[in-house]
């Protein structure tokens, strides 16, 4: 087996293992599937370019989750800036979501969950998304974010409490 073949096999192994995790996390951060796919693609291309520096599959997993999470958050912030600029120019509220949204976000229940999550502070939201949708345990989340397990535990709890408060406010429809 040539070096190139082993390289490709390693890449495919990491892709098969990590893609289902990061696509779920990124989808909940960005709120639409097209953006999630775009972010995942970008993250894996970056990983391919740096594969020599991240030879271990376990480290690759954490690296990819961290990079994809950061890319998704950056994308969301950029969209927020664009929306505010649009509102300033045309003096009217722009649609909250860009074109090409999936049918999932069009559903009321989906919007309710997404809006509730979006109202959480970034530090709490990311941890809760990784726990609930990425199915990562506290130790894995701590490794990805570079914080302690105790901190993860506290953040998950606070995120749940804040989410419950948002729902109690009554402006979120829960199916």
């Amino acid at each position: 087996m040539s070096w190139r073949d082993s390289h490709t096999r390693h890449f495919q192994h990491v892709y098969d293992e990590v893609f289902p995790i990061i696509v779920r996390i990124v989808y909940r951060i960005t709120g639409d599937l097209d953006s999630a796919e775009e972010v995942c693609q970008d993250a894996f291309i970056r990983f391919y370019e740096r594969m020599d520096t991240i030879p271990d599959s376990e480290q690759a997993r954490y690296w990819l989750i961290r990079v994809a999470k950061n890319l998704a958050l950056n994308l969301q912030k950029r969209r927020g800036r664009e929306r505010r600029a649009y509102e300033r120019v045309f003096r009217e509220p722009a649609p909250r979501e860009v074109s090409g949204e999936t049918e999932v976000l069009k559903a009321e229940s989906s919007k309710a969950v997404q809006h509730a999550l979006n109202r959480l502070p970034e530090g709490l939201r990311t941890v809760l998304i990784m726990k609930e949708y990425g199915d990562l345990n506290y130790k894995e989340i701590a490794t990805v974010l570079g914080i302690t397990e105790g901190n993860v535990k506290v953040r998950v709890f606070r995120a749940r409490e804040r989410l419950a408060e948002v729902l109690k406010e009554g402006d979120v429809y829960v199916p």
Partner: protein
Amino acid sequence: MCPDRELLSAYLDGEVPSPWKERIADELQNDAECAAVYAQLCEGRRMLHSDPEPDFAASKQAVWQRIADMPLVRRPVPLWRRRVALPVPVAAAAASLLMLLAGGLLWFTARATVGPNEIASSAGNELVVRIGEISIEELLRVINAGETVGELTVTLPDSATFGIFGEPQLVRAADYRRREPVIVPLENPTSTDDETHSGASAGRE
């Protein structure tokens, strides 16, 4: 007693170890109020997962196809930045071996410079020898071969008695005004003493 909500949240995530998780399970069965708090947390989780997921399997296939169609180029990594995966036991053994070799090399170098009988204690460039444990010939050999020794301390035996033999060439004198010892030749003490005093007074001025 019902655990606090934070602990219940960790319990919901399966992050509470035994025997605490069994105790919490018992508490949830026996305490209705506690069970209600836990039910709220479960409801929050149910809400988060009530949203149907899109077809991620199709996404996985689509993204893979897009990546495969792209002309990807790996960035060349300099040799000194490449990482090498090494099992911990191997790394520990290599480090131990390296330290052993370095220690052995140092010891061997020290032995090669000065013989074992001649060294009373040695630290860095300083060498201490004891008269009585080695002969005068050996001491002279140490002094002559002592290029690597910066400072040599010769310790005389406590019980030995010493006398003056022959005509001493040097005497040790001290200028108490400057509190510094001055070595002057015995044969012409007057001229040197004058020079010393003149130098000392010039220094004071």
